[in-house]
């Protein structure tokens, strides 16, 4: 009897235990609890860090807060893609720096991609000379630190050019092209009244081109008939805006640079700091992209080419329709990293005097003395840029990924 009771009790206790145990040992509940704990700890650390910084700044008598962004900057910036004067605010100066970074990053990514693809394909060329040349390019540029390359382009190439005065340019005369140590001077296209129609036509043609492409593809799918989309599109793109140009009475004129006083004025100028940074970033990153492209193409099994040939597809179409789409799957993820690297590496601009985000915020930091605010904002901006690039490339990657049925 006594033993029975004990037995029953132990059984019921066991049943109770198992009910609670299922909650404690439930991996989902446990995981949730631990993650919540981690978040609380991390949030606590961040909070104590922030309050600690705030208290210390206050104790040391250093101004804090973001109010300075609304104050007048009072310094000039050498080049800017948005309107900026020394009367603008610190916030605007900040955007000038951001704009300069974006411009050099976007153009740099474009050139790095183009050069990278060409060199990558050249490394696989059957031509001995082309192949070796591409190899030398990749191995040289990939193995020299970027900062050195930037200094090379800036100090050893662009700085030793003569000044416009020393070149013997006649003061006041119009110059169509001049590369000197103040920059690359080209004529600037000045739109006059009616010029917007030309731009409008060009945009309209691009839209038509796109629609035409969709239509041609659809028709080919349905009927097998092909349509020369590229030739038609390009033809329209050249002819129609040109027509608009003449119809509106040639409302574009060229403004030439000329030497006045110390410097060249007017015209379209690309400053040496920008050129050096662009050259350095694109050529350096291109060497990495070349290797990525080569790897991507080699990753497509040779059987694919043979199969395409067996179906009677010409070599040109084989690479366009069979090899490249499959290679892209391999190429795009590492390509994203290179784009991120290029954008972040553009901060080396500070060494050669290009007013990028780091350089401008450095000046802001100095004039205001608010290091914590300025640096954390700068970090957040780079972070945002990188995450946006990543998101875009992920989307692009998904769109070229193999469709699995």
């Amino acid at each position, binding site marked *: 009897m006594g033993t029975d009771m004990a037995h029953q009790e132990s059984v019921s206790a066991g049943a109770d235990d198992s009910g609670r145990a299922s909650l404690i040992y439930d991996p989902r509940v446990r995981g949730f609890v631990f993650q919540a704990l981690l978040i609380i700890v991390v949030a606590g650390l961040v909070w104590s860090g922030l309050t600690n910084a705030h208290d210390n700044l206050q104790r040391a008598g250093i101004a804090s807060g973001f109010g300075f962004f609304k104050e007048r900057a009072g310094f000039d910036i*050498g080049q800017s893609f948005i309107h900026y004067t020394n009367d603008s605010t610190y916030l605007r100066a900040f955007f000038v720096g951001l704009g300069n970074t974006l411009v050099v990053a976007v153009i740099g990514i474009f050139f790095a991609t183009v050069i990278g693809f060409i060199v990558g394909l050249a490394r696989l060329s059957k031509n001995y000379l082309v192949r070796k040349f591409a190899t030398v390019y990749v191995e040289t540029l990939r193995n020299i630190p970027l900062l050195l390359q930037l200094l090379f382009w800036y100090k050893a190439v662009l700085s030793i050019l003569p000044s416009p005065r020393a070149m013997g340019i006649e003061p006041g005369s119009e110059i169509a092209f001049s590369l000197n140590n103040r920059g690359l001077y080209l004529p600037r296209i000045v739109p006059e009244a009616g010029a917007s129609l030309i731009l409008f036509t060009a945009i309209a043609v691009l839209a038509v081109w796109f629609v035409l492409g969709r239509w041609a593809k659809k028709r080919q799918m349905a009927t097998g008939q092909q349509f020369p989309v590229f030739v038609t599109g390009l033809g329209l793109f050249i002819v129609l805006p040109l027509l608009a140009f003449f119809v509106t009475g040639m409302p574009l004129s060229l403004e030439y640079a000329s030497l006045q006083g*110390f410097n060249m004025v007017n015209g379209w100028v690309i400053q040496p700091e920008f050129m050096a940074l662009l050259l350095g970033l694109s050529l350096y990153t291109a060497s990495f992209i070349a290797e990525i492209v080569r790897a991507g193409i080699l990753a497509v099994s040779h059987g694919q080419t043979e199969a395409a040939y067996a179906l009677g597809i010409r070599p040109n179409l084989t690479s366009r329709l069979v090899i490249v789409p499959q290679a892209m799957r391999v190429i795009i993820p590492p390509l994203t990293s290179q784009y991120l690297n290029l954008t972040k590496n553009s901060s080396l601009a500070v060494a050669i005097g290009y007013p990028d985000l780091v350089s401008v915020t450095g000046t802001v930091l100095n004039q205001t003395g608010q290091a914590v605010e300025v640096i*954390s904002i700068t970090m957040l901006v780079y972070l945002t840029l990188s995450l946006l690039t990543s998101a875009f490339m992920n989307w692009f990657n998904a769109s070229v990924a193999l469709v699995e049925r």
Partner: protein
Amino acid sequence: MKKEILSAVVGVAAVAGLGAAAASAATLDDVKAKGFVQCGVSTGLAGFSAPNDAGDWSGLDVDLCRGVAAAVFGDAKAVKYSPLSAKERFTALQSGEIDVLSRNTTWTMSRDTQLGLNFAGVNYYDGQGFMVRKSLGVNSALQLSGASVCVQTGTTTELNLTDYFKANDMTYNPVVFEKLEEVNAAYDANRCDVYTTDQSGLYSIRLGLSAPDEHMVLPEVISKEPLGPVVRQGDDQWFAIVKWVHFAMLNAEEMGITSENVDEMMNSTDPNVMRMLGKEGAFGDSLGIGNDWAYNVIKQVGNYGEVFERNVGASTQLNISRGVNALWSKGGLQYAPPIR
């Protein structure tokens, strides 16, 4: 993606939060404990702070640091130098990395009030000027409209430049670098027509150019640039020590005490001299250092006149005249309160 964003934001916030470490209040105790004064100087400006062939630092600004070390330790050599760019200098001082900043730094109101710093005096009255190539045929700064101007970032120079060109309705194209050497190299490579900084700096920089004789400093002085040593706010004792080392050097010059005759002066019965050299009163005690503090400064570093002549004066290549930096009694601005 969401996870990436979260982890990245947390990372940034953590880094930003931990950035500001507390700077302790009693600098003198720290300095005594480590046995040397950590002094922030320029990355190389001849006459003010520059390393010589042997790697020893010398210059007007360096001598102030040596003076502080002489006052605290009785040994002018007990200094370690941190070469800093214009951009780095205030952060280095705020964070406690250096004990005193003596780096041709202009005293301005915003720096005095917003950065948590105190200026301990003016050891050189300067003004901003322009340097150009003689071949440009320019003889006034008012002819500089349209020029490319080389300037160092994070300086009052950058702001004065903007103001000057604006006030005179002229345009210019700024070419801005972070490091002094980069500005020098760009100007030397003719990237700019004009170099602007404090006039003393221009004379010093000119010596380092590939052909110094081809350059000239224009006569215009466009700003007031009182340069002086800087310390952290909130440590009055250390502030007083740096301030009074500078004053002691000025007072010594005024009383005619030099590094050579200071030992004889110890026998002087002039109460002013006796107070200064620690024979009367306990002025060192009130600063928390030895009563022979001023003796050590004068003996090992010299009075202000000696320091000036040795580093930037007529006997040096810089050949800068005393001008406004002469003592008040000789028509200049250098004036020190009495030791009493």
